[in-house]
């Protein structure tokens, strides 16, 4: 059976002080799919609107990844996710799940616009359900108010846009100094950008202490670096918090 690119996003499955975060739950789901159905792409974290009238736990972010599923495995994965999140999510959480075959999305722009609205506006479940129906996205609430569907749909939309989110986790290398070209050739990232807009100098090395974290920009995994006098340094956690 033919397989199709599938977007999967979840949101709002934890609570303050709970033993597992939404990101970690998403990692478990991706691991299950990897073991049983398809390779998965890295999870991206998408920051949504921070507003007092939104009942988020602590940071209001949504997690998304993609994989390749056929119609039958899509249903199996859906059943697994719903059961798993129902079981593992926090008692007071309001989880939501969004899943869609990319080929089935009716109009990318409408869905993407919804995603960016979720970064700047207070949205509601009625809108999320309407957009999901129009765009053929499977959307389901899990527990309590089920407000997580708003963010889950936004997670799919923002990942689809290719212009939002940052890698959850990091790329770990066995060295701390590397030439830009090596990162590109070995496929760790698709692009490297200097934050002040200067052109990247191919012979200038990138020095780093920790793993590397890319952002999604124009559909590419882009490493942002700052120019110091003698080398490039990837943007740290503090700077990437805004992505």
């Amino acid at each position, binding site marked *: 059976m033919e397989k199709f690119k599938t977007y999967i996003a979840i949101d709002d499955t934890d609570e303050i002080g709970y033993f597992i*975060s939404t990101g970690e739950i998403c990692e478990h789901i991706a691991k299950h799919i990897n073991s049983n159905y398809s390779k998965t792409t890295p999870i991206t974290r998408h920051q949504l609107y*921070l*507003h007092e009238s939104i009942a988020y736990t*602590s940071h209001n972010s949504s997690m998304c990844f993609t994989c390749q599923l056929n119609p039958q495995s899509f249903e199996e994965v859906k059943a697994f996710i719903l059961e798993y999140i129902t079981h593992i999510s926090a008692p007071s959480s309001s989880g939501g799940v969004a899943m869609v075959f990319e080929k089935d999305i009716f109009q990318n722009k409408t869905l993407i616009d919804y995603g960016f609205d979720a970064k700047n506006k207070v949205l509601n479940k009625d809108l999320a359900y309407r957009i999901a129906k129009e765009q053929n996205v499977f959307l389901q609430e899990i527990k309590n108010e089920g407000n997580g569907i708003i963010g889950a749909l936004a997670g799919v939309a923002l990942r689809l846009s290719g212009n939002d989110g940052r890698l*959850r986790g990091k790329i770990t290398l066995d060295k701390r100094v590397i030439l830009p070209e090596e990162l590109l050739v070995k496929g760790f990232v698709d692009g490297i950008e200097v934050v002040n807009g200067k052109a990247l100098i191919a012979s200038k090395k990138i020095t780093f202490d920790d793993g590397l974290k890319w952002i999604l920009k124009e559909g590419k995994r882009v490493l942002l670096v700052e120019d110091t006098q003698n080398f490039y340094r990837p943007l740290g956690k*503090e700077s990437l918090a805004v992505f």
Partner: protein
Amino acid sequence: MFSVNNEFMFGKMSFEMAQKSVCEKFILDTDEEECVVSTDTSSCYNCLYRKWTQQSFVCIQRSRNEQKYSF
């Protein structure tokens, strides 16, 4: 360092103040991914009980207890 609404008054980029504001209720966020600064140092920015807002964060512990701190 906190407003009457228990919001940190120095925003999201005052790393030194966020370190100075750490209290005895500090618990490192269990998900390292959500830690904004190095996990080697204690900072309110990494605390499990901070809830990010548009401009800064609210301390959930303070909100829960309405405890008066004397910083």
